[in-house]
């Protein structure tokens, strides 16, 4: 296994903790939003924005930048927090989540928010957009890579598999999908609502290179993301095993925190666990 500099791993872990504190604060201030699916995605988003992606926050529309799409758009508090901490806009703006006139819409809006590459929120469409971006890179002979994070609930959507089929048909190897496999969707556990296993075999059958990792372990995440860029001839999917609500004891594995903001008491308790206000 690749060995990463301890200082890098420490830095990423600190960022992840910071993003978590932002997520809890933002959803609490907004009084609504989706903390559970934001918290499960934190490490992957942090690894991308603070190590992997070739981006320039000062030039969010730079043509050669790597692209990231959060197909499960409801998890955007984590994305917004990472974009702010990476310098795409002011950290102060995070307090405006879901408020009238804010660039931080309840679901990501690419027209108004710097760094947001695709407007998502209706589940199941982001991977297809990613295929489009990967095809455009090929047409323009650009070297950028496109990453798309999808929810395990999105495996229910027929369009996910239409995109999967197209990506391997067109041999887009400049595309990486990351499944946030947190085992829950809105109504309950994925295993009860709609069975999606054997998930790795499904992706393999659709012609994808598949890797399964612990989605909260930076060494595994970095290694998988770096490796995925080197695979030739086919697209890649990383199934990141995660915990919904990760980092806040009473949100971990709790369906109830899919789409519910923390109350004042819950906010205070969460901040105690995470080490204080951001």
């Amino acid at each position: 296994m690749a060995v990463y500099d301890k200082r890098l791993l420490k830095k990423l872990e600190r960022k992840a903790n910071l993003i978590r504190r932002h997520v809890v604060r933002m959803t609490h201030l907004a009084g609504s939003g989706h903390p559970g699916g934001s918290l499960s995605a934190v490490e992957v988003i942090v690894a991308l924005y603070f190590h992997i992606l070739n981006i320039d926050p000062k030039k969010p529309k730079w043509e050669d930048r790597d692209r990231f799409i959060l197909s499960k758009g409801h998890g955007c508090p984590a994305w917004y927090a990472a974009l702010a901490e990476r310098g795409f806009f002011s950290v102060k703006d995070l307090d405006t989540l879901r408020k009238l006139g804010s660039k931080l819409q309840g679901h990501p809006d690419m027209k108004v928010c710097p760094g947001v590459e695709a407007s998502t929120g209706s589940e199941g469409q982001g991977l297809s957009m990613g295929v489009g971006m990967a095809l455009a890179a090929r047409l323009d002979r650009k070297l950028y890579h496109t990453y798309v994070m999808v929810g395990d609930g999105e495996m229910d959507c027929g369009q996910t598999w239409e995109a999967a089929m197209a990506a391997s048909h067109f041999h887009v190897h400049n595309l990486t999908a990351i499944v946030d496999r947190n085992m829950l969707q809105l109504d309950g556990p994925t295993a009860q609502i709609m069975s999606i296993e054997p998930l790795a075999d499904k992706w393999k059958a659709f012609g994808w290179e598949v890797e399964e990792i612990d989605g909260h372990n930076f060494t595994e995440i970095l290694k998988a993301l770096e490796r995925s860029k080197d695979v030739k001839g086919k697209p890649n999917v990383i199934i990141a095993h995660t915990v919904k609500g990760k980092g806040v004891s009473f949100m971990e594995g709790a369906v109830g925190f899919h789409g519910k903001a923390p109350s004042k008491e819950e906010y205070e308790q969460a901040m105690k666990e995470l080490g204080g206000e951001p």
Partner: protein
Amino acid sequence: MNLSDFKLESQRTYWAKALVELGKERQDIVVVSADLSTSVKTSLFAEEFPERHFNVGIAEQNMMSISAGLAACGKTVFASTFAAFGTGRVYDQIRQSIAYPKLPVNIIATHAGITVGGDGATHQIVEDMALMRALPNMTVIVPADAPETYRAIKAVADYDGPAYVRMGRANVPTITSDKGKFKIGKATVLRDGEDVSLIGTGIMVSRCLLAASILEKHKISARVIDLSTIKPLDHKTVIKAARETGGVVTAEEHSVVVGMGSEVALCLTETAHVPMKRVGIPDVFGQSGDSDELMEEYGLTPENIVEAAHDVIARKGR
């Protein structure tokens, strides 16, 4: 009269109450959900009748065509999800597998319009009525409040064909009662008046009532009509109101492009020319915000209706 004079009740609670009662009375009632059963409250039906509830996951296209299959074999189907995912995303499935064969699938759409609030434009569909209205064979109902929702659900269960019932997320002022039968295609005059007609649908009906009480202070007598069936439109009541009051204001929490107001306008163009004004969401997407704030931002307050009424009255006889 103020909004706070009314009891606020959840349309979703009443829809689920009607659904569970129907489930008890009739074995042919089946329900299909798409990973939003807790939000749209079909979970209450699922608790009582697990064998007649199918949750297909986040797969709305599948939901609509499975509903069609069930209906083609004699079931009366209720398919329920958010309005955005139950219309736009599945327009072709509704068109081909439900409306064209005129199957008894009732699409019960919650979280319609901008009052969805924080979730923003992706979830605030403002053109669903237009989409559903355009479909041959489709019945479109937008109840004004919770009790009317209850009665409308009972009515569509008895109706042999596809229906779309639209409601919002927010609690709404109760202005009708759950007694009596809902008649599909029949508008209700809630308040009589002579100077102008305020025709509302959905949550805007209560705003029309408030507007009428403000207009009364301005010595203007306004008729208020609850136009809960958008299709088929109650031409008779609309034309009568236009002829008797000489001016019409429509109000809907929906885009004014091909909404209820444009249907009323078309009806009157061909029958009774009177000055008219449509209150509704302009031709734009919504955005995140508090639902009351958004109602102001997009011009959907009683004051906006009052202003429109004055404008209409000023144009009379010109």
